[in-house]
């Protein structure tokens, strides 16, 4: 599987920003148990662009929440930057969510009552940054995503693509190492979706971020370093986009 990694550093050492070891998650509803994850192990390398694919109900979102520190596994371990997140108290967990990971959602999840710039400065406020510095940094990030002129607009006044850009700007607020995007193009049309994908690629190259996306978008899959397939709570396959191309061509050829 080693050959699948691209951008391996010179020393040849594996620098894993996220490690999941035999992660299981069981949901209990009365007497019945649902095994959303049945033992998933995955290492994500620093600077990697990873895509997670799987049908709905496959445990993809659950796995996604686990590696983002949004949920704790029933069994197994999740390490973010070599820290076992199960060991963290609520204050440390909040600190981690605030500074280590940037979250991007399918439905943008901007705070509707706040303007664009206030949405971006909110995580900075949580991190204890003073409002003047936060404002400057937010304007800088908005410039980077191409929305500097929309700083004072409310989310409701913007298009889907613009809202997702604000969400991306917000996720970058505290300069995280990891960007987690749950179907970031799912609610966008083709062209806007492509713009967002370009933005991801650009940010990743400029800032050296590790990007993990859950997606069905073929264009996103093509840009990624690895594609992980999850089915029925298990990883069924890890492949490179080149291999996938062949498969898709085969399916198309039938």
């Amino acid at each position, binding site marked *: 599987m080693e050959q699948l990694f691209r951008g391996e550093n010179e020393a040849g050492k594996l620098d894993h920003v996220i490690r999941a070891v035999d992660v299981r998650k069981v949901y209990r509803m009365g007497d019945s148990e649902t095994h959303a994850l049945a033992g998933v192990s995955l290492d994500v390398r620093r600077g990697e662009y990873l895509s997670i694919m799987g049908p709905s109900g496959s445990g993809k979102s659950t796995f996604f929440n686990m590696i983002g520190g*949004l949920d704790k596994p029933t069994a197994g371990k999740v390490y973010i930057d070599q820290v076992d997140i199960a060991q963290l108290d609520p*204050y440390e967990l909040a*600190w981690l*969510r*605030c500074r280590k990971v940037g979250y991007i959602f399918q439905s943008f*999840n901007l705070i509707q*009552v706040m303007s664009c710039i206030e949405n971006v400065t*909110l995580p900075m406020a*949580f991190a*204890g940054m003073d409002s003047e510095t936060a404002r400057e940094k937010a304007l800088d990030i908005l410039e980077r995503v191409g929305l500097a002129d929309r700083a004072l607009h409310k989310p409701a006044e913007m298009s889907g693509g613009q809202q997702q850009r604000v969400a991306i700007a917000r996720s970058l607020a505290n300069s995280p190492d990891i960007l987690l995007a749950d179907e970031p193009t799912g609610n966008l049309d083709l062209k806007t979706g492509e713009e967002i994908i370009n933005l991801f690629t650009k940010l990743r190259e400029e800032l050296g971020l590790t990007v993990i996306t859950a997606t069905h978008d073929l264009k996103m899959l093509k840009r990624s370093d690895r594609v992980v397939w999850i089915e029925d709570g298990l990883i069924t396959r890890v492949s490179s986009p080149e291999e996938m191309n062949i498969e898709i061509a085969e399916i198309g050829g039938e």
Partner: protein
Amino acid sequence: MEAIGKQVALPLRRAATIAVRGIRIRLGRSLVTVSGVVLGIAFLMSNLTAQIIKTAVSAEQAQRQTVDLMMSLVSAETGEVTGRALAVAVFGEISDDERAFVARMLRARPASFRALGLELAGLTPATASTLGAGASLLMILGNAPSASAALSDLTAGMTGKVVLDTVAERRFDGGPAADVRRELFFGKQAEARQAELASVARSERFRITWIVVVSLLVTVVTVANALLMSVTERFREIGTMKCLGALSKFIRRLFLIESALIGLAGSLLGVLTGALLTMTIYGFTYRFSLVFFSIHYGWMLLAACGAVACGTVMSMAAAIYPARVAARMVPADALRSTV
């Protein structure tokens, strides 16, 4: 690897700013919640105001009743006051009721009204020996248990030696005079009636307290329900904030501040409505001048402050459970919900 730090709590002012903005944006539903508080506090304030007005007005009424009673005794002894020669002696401190009584007597235009120990426009000052000359009735007022004059001196020269006294146990220099008939203004019956009135007032006050307490509890439940709805509505927002690094403490604070502000605004409005409405209604029942002049405004201010504090605290108490629900939410659950 960088060590994991601990997230710091956001200053209260930042939380307040965010809470205020939340209320402003969701003005419609905030107003509905506020109106719940307004109703409860208006009811509380209206009862407090009514109590204050009744106390003031009843003092006024009680005085009028007392004066009426004294006047009726006077006319029973001498007939019409108008055109009579009267005398009054005051020993010790004169009460407001007694002063009002003297003033009423003066308004009835007696032919002469001599007075000892009391100076008032219309009264003719006299000494103990000149007081009784030609008078048909002598009234003895004031609270002193012993009078520094002899009854025979005071009544010297009176046409009919009748004395009306307010204090039953009052002793006079030289003891009682044989030829003087001394009657009392207030007998045993008057006292019994006052005690009965006081007991009726007590049971009435208890009943009102009970109704007010129930209405306040209803308000608390209403506010709690509204806030719980508001939490459900904001599941996604709360989840997002948690993803961005908000502490549970911050979320709890957000809801507590919001409810405190709602409580404060609601109570202020409630106090204003309750007080004005009650004063107007009592103004129509009695007289406006009577209501507005007799009210003890210090007590009104105290009642208003109490009601505002009560409303704010109640509203915050109502927020404890909803705030906990919001704060304890796991971000993953919050994001999954599509409410």
